[in-house]
């Protein structure tokens, strides 16, 4: 016999190191030969898409395309420290540092353009497709490429820094502002529980993630799918088995993670509500995307069979045991 049920899960997630610990990101922007823009920043691309997102934020601020930017982020001797690629902090913290650096760079470029264009002031200057333009008399314009040629013996660069605002919590009461900003989400799933085998099948999932603003919706959806899959494994089968400190399942033939056959299509919804302190309103989502899934599945299992599973993962053995116990108690 199979029983179906639906469940919902919500979560919030505070970004950053937290608790008043100095959480600092830095970036340097430099005009490169040929008019290209170099962003030097210790942002790590772990697969989440930080490299692309950071380039998008830089390109937006400097009025160029992603193809005009080189992000130098591999070598500690070439780039400033931007903190760890963790705590869902890169988009918000390092994105802010890059935005600030690019805004400062804009002022530097305006100063040089003022001289080269013979202007009295930088007022009215704007950046447009790799050029500095006097917005109310657009014939007055000079390209980044031309500026890089004229100033080839001088480094035109600007720095940017962002320090997150959190406070240390009181050690006795925990009162304080430990993280900023917070990201929110909600997920609903439908499951089918096989009462004879204890196998839980996911039938449907709708997942809404607050992003403040989506820097790159495809990348964001990819994170949502990936977070969902990781949460699916966490809920239904992943369990590092220990025996006196020995890991019993220390390889992929024994420690199973979800395959394409285990995953389902997830209906992803991106909710945008720009955060004022964030770069273009964008908040991080890397960790939050895995959080509300497990509770939604657990609540759906309860809705299907009337048994609350309080211990993860919900393996078929564990579920069958719970079903039998419930039968005995009734």
């Amino acid at each position, binding site marked *: 016999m199979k029983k179906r049920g639906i469940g919902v899960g919500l979560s919030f997630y505070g970004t950053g190191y937290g608790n008043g610990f100095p959480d600092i990101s830095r970036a340097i922007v430099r005009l490169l030969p040929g008019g290209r823009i170099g962003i030097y920043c210790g942002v790590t691309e772990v697969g989440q898409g930080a490299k692309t997102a950071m380039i998008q934020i830089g390109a937006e601020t400097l009025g160029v395309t992603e193809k005009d930017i080189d992000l130098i982020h591999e070598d500690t001797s070439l780039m400033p420290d931007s903190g760890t690629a963790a705590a869902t902090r890169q988009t918000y913290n390092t994105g802010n540092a890059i935005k600030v650096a690019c805004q400062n760079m804009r002022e530097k470029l305006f100063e040089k353009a003022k001289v080269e264009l013979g202007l009295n002031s930088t007022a009215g200057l704007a950046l447009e497709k790799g050029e500095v333009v006097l917005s109310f008399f657009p014939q007055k314009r000079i390209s980044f490429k031309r500026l890089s040629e004229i100033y080839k013996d001088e480094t035109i660069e600007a720095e940017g820094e962002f320090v997150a605002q959190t406070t240390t919590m009181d050690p006795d009461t925990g009162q304080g502002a430990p993280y900023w900003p917070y990201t929110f989400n909600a997920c609903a799933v439908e499951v089918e529980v096989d009462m004879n085998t204890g196998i839980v099948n996911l039938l449907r999932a709708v997942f809404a993630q607050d992003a403040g603003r989506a820097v790159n919706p495809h990348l964001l959806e990819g994170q949502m799918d990936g977070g969902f*899959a990781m949460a699916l494994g966490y809920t239904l089968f992943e369990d590092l088995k220990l025996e006196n400190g020995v890991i019993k399942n220390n390889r992929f033939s024994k420690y199973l993670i979800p395959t394409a056959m285990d995953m389902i299509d997830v209906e992803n919804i991106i909710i945008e509500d720009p955060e004022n302190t964030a770069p273009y309103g964008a908040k991080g989502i890397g960790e939050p995307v895995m959080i509300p899934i497990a509770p939604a599945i657990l609540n759906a299992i309860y809705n299907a069979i009337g048994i609350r599973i309080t211990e993860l993962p919900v393996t078929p053995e564990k579920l069958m045991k719970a079903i039998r116990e419930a039968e005995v108690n009734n």
Partner: protein
Amino acid sequence: MVNINFTVNGKPYEISIDENMRLIDVLRDELGLIGTKEGCGEGECGACTIIMDGETVNSCLVMGFQADGSNIVTIEGLEKDGQLHPVQRAYMEAGAVQCGFCIPGMVLSTKALLDKNPSPSDEEIREGISGNLCRCTGYNKMLIATKKAIEYMKGE
């Protein structure tokens, strides 16, 4: 040492290898084809997937000498005349790539699937790539990529 003759990405090779060498080591250490990745060494993750005589195999489970006389395609062999294979292009466009470590194997499994079955169902796509583990993407963008690739291949 044993001598083997085989073709990799259209190029014939005659090399002498240690008989204990696995095919993945021959490809990576001897031929420098580092696009083939090792994720588990026991045929579970599919990162080392290559196409051998038209079939996908885990190159960590094949001994080097077993490749004698075979025709092998690795990720480096998919581009034609400087053009990406439709599956590669589709993976890029669909956003199916994240950390990228599973991608060479995943792309080859997708290609091998479409070579045999040019219009697979969703279920068949999932099955076709189920031997390739990915921890980042949740696989759904790979389904979208595969469907995109099908369209591109029809147009070719």
